């Protein structure tokens, strides 16, 4: 018998499924594909077949377990609380153990993304050739293949002239010159680093204005989402250790990227190999806060005391729930409280606000056609609100939403919530 180490870890979750088929209604992928292999029930069944020794990790099986956004909509609605995300990720990890990563991902994850300098240099290189690439609408440009495989999606906004890492300082003291209320470590995440550096500076400014000291450790690395969600636990673990080391001496680790915050928190779920590691990952999790929960729950900022930026006066805003906030971290009330409380802004709820935008990290690289269809439904929701701006708190979603808003020739602009306030 083969060693099914990673699968054994998730057997208990796979066993929970009672095959009721209710997940089909909530699964964005099934809604487009309408086949049993695209839905949680089918994937779960096949994983159980592997556990029973009736199924191998064939190429087709790889495709099937790859065809999941890990959006957790099925998990949220499953009457048996089957944790399909863990089953799928566990199966991917087992497959990586048996079959290796595949050349592209191997290069991307292990040689490029795992090494912060190399990652930056590659993206720089891509940037210098940016003008060569076909220009699509707005500021969206295609990227070369090797970058696509980095899990950034197909279209990304023009890369920043200067990356956040090049302009950020290691330490920011509170602006009022007083003794800091607390010290937080800022985790930037790659999308903010390369595409939205101003968002990072904005967040730092927001915090230091309110008496908080912010440190930005240079030794921080990629959060690891693209790697460990693809089943590369080994590289994921390396990232986890690097980041935990980088953020040793802070009260909290904060980030304005929903995917990063949830990924950092979930190290303990997927990656520990030893008891000691598990303990440390759990300790780390407790200190990680997404910007939305940090502002509302920890800093206790009152929304009505925030000042809306002039340019948004009188505008109507709607909120898109990133999967990694609403279902991975149950963060949904905090951003709505801010948006509803902000004076001068009108808030409308969008139908299907919690529907995945279709990005799913590297999912959109391999299944861009499905991503577009799912995003189409998201766009319908946005249109129905008549809002001027779409607000969210995950740069990953921002990329995909911007891409689709432009392609659908819609008037809305997409913002991170932090960009709205002074």
């Amino acid at each position: 018998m083969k060693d099914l180490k990673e699968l054994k870890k998730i057997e208990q979750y796979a066993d929970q499924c009672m095959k009721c088929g209710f997940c089909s209604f909530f699964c964005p992928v099934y809604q487009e594909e309408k086949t049993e292999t695209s839905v949680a029930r089918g994937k779960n069944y096949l994983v159980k077949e592997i556990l029973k020794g009736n199924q191998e990790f064939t190429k087709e099986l790889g495709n099937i377990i790859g065809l999941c956004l890990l959006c957790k909509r099925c998990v949220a609605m499953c009457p048996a609380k089957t944790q399909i995300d863990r089953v799928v990720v566990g199966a991917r990890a087992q497959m990586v153990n048996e079959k290796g990563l595949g050349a592209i991902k191997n290069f991307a994850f292990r040689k490029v993304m795992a090494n912060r300098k190399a990652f930056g240099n590659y993206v720089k290189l891509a940037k210098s050739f940016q003008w060569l690439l076909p220009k699509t609408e707005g500021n969206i440009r295609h990227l070369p293949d090797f970058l696509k495989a980095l899990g950034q999606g197909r279209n990304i906004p023009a890369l920043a002239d200067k990356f956040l890492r090049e302009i950020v300082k290691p330490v920011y003291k509170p602006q009022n010159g007083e003794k800091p209320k607390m010290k937080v470590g800022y985790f930037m995440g790659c999308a903010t680093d390369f595409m939205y550096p101003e968002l990072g500076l904005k967040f730092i400014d927001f915090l230091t204005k309110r008496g908080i000291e912010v440190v930005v450790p240079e030794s921080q690395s990629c959060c690891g989402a693209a790697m460990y969600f693809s089943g590369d636990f080994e590289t994921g673990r390396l990232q986890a250790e690097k980041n935990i080391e980088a953020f040793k001496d802070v009260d909290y680790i904060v980030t304005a990227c929903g995917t990063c915050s949830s990924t950092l928190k979930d190290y303990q779920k997927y990656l520990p190999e030893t008891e000691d590691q598990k303990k440390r990952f759990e300790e780390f999790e407790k200190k990680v806060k997404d910007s939305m929960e940090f502002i509302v729950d920890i800093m206790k900022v009152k929304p009505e005391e925030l000042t809306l930026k002039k340019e948004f006066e009188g505008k109507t805003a709607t909120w898109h729930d990133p999967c990694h906030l609403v279902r991975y971290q149950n963060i949904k009330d905090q951003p709505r409280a801010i948006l509803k409380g902000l004076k001068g802004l009108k808030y409308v709820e969008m139908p299907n606000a919690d529907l995945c935008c279709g990005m799913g990290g590297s999912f959109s690289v391999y299944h861009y056609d499905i991503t577009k269809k799912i995003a189409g439904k998201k766009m319908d929701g946005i249109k129905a609100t008549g809002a001027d701006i779409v607000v969210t708190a995950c740069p990953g979603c921002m990329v995909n939403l911007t891409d689709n808003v432009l392609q659908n020739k819609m008037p809305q602009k997409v913002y991170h919530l932090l960009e709205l306030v002074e």
Partner: protein
Amino acid sequence: MLKESVVAELQKIVGKENVLTSPEALKAYSYDGTTSWVHEPDVVVFPTITQQVSDIMKLANAEKIPVTPRGGGTNVSGGSIPIMGGIVLCTTKMNKILKVDKENLTATVEPGVVLQDLTIRLMKEGLFFPPDPQSFLGATLGGIIAENAGGPACVKYGVTKQYILGVEVVLPNGDIIHLGGRTLKNVVGYDLLHIFISSEGTLGVITKAELKLNPIPPAKKTIMVVYDDVAKAGESVFRVLENGVIPGKIELMDNWVINRIEEMMPMGLPKDADALLLFETDGIPEAVEKETEKIVEIVKKYGAVDARVAKDQAEADKYWMGRKAGFAAVFGKAKTVFAEDVTVPRGQIPALINKCKELGKKYNIEVVVLGHAGDGNLHPAILTDINNKDHYDRAVKAMDEIIEGAVELGGVLSGEHGIGLEKQRFLKRQLEPVVIEMMKKVKALFDPNNIMNPGKIWE
């Protein structure tokens, strides 16, 4: 194994992208919502229009290949499992709501429309389709009709067959026929329409249906009634009805189910109650008010410990959510579950419940009861494990005796799930030999080559 030429032919009919043959995909079409049956097809096809269904059937008929129709695959009878291999004809890509006719209170749908999608669409028009099988999130209309599905709302509104005005059907030889029509009354010749409703996919493929709709009642209320004896709960059901109140729903949960629901989603259900009944009244506000009062009065008179009217929709929703989670609670607790579907005349509910409890003790196994008490359709569930032979054997015996008991009490062995594979060994106990013979002749008339969902209903 199918000939390659057949697969190529199927690809020609529906397009390459609508034919699945990989071993992995075939595995994913080997099961339904049951726990004890598995069989893989040789190929899965997804037609998108009626003509393609007809072409597939012609091909299958000529080659004598079994065809098993399947929609959402949420059925719990084994009915959509391709037990003889062959073709699974999956209707999930024929999922258009073709028309909602507000004037005539009808809707025209394709077979792959999911019930919940229909409900959402109809809600916009203030309408609803009353049959409400609890698999509504995945169940498709084709399957709902083929199984004559029911649900909680049947106590007042009846089952699927009361809401189907007409169907378009593709026969096993590929002929496309139309039965019934669009009118409420229709006595033109034999009522063949109703042979298709509950035919379990053994006579042909439903490719279109004309549904009868109701306007959504403007008001409703939920009452949660607590009992210290599950048999008393059973009695309350017919006492309420005999006193002239027909609630929209009456659902039962026993102590075991209550406690599992509380574990899953704590909502303050009384954990020491022996049983709960959930009533829902619906209609115009004045009537709902009066009926609610009346129910509280009657159940108290007949032994309820407490009767609590939900103060608002949120509270009501909570109770119904709990009821919906009931089955999950049961299935989540055992490797193998026999979800029985016996139905008795309402007056016999207490007797059937007592029988279940006795058998649980006799065989030393867990028999839990929940279900649509309002129409006598209980779902006693037996928790067991197919890998534990001794336990499993006892469970099988208990199930046999429950079914026997129900038939003795004047009931039927399936109220809404159908026979499929799960119940075929009991068929003889319910139907006279002559009746079974007649059914077989009907089957042969429609399907002389026995290619339509073969191996189902009778052994």
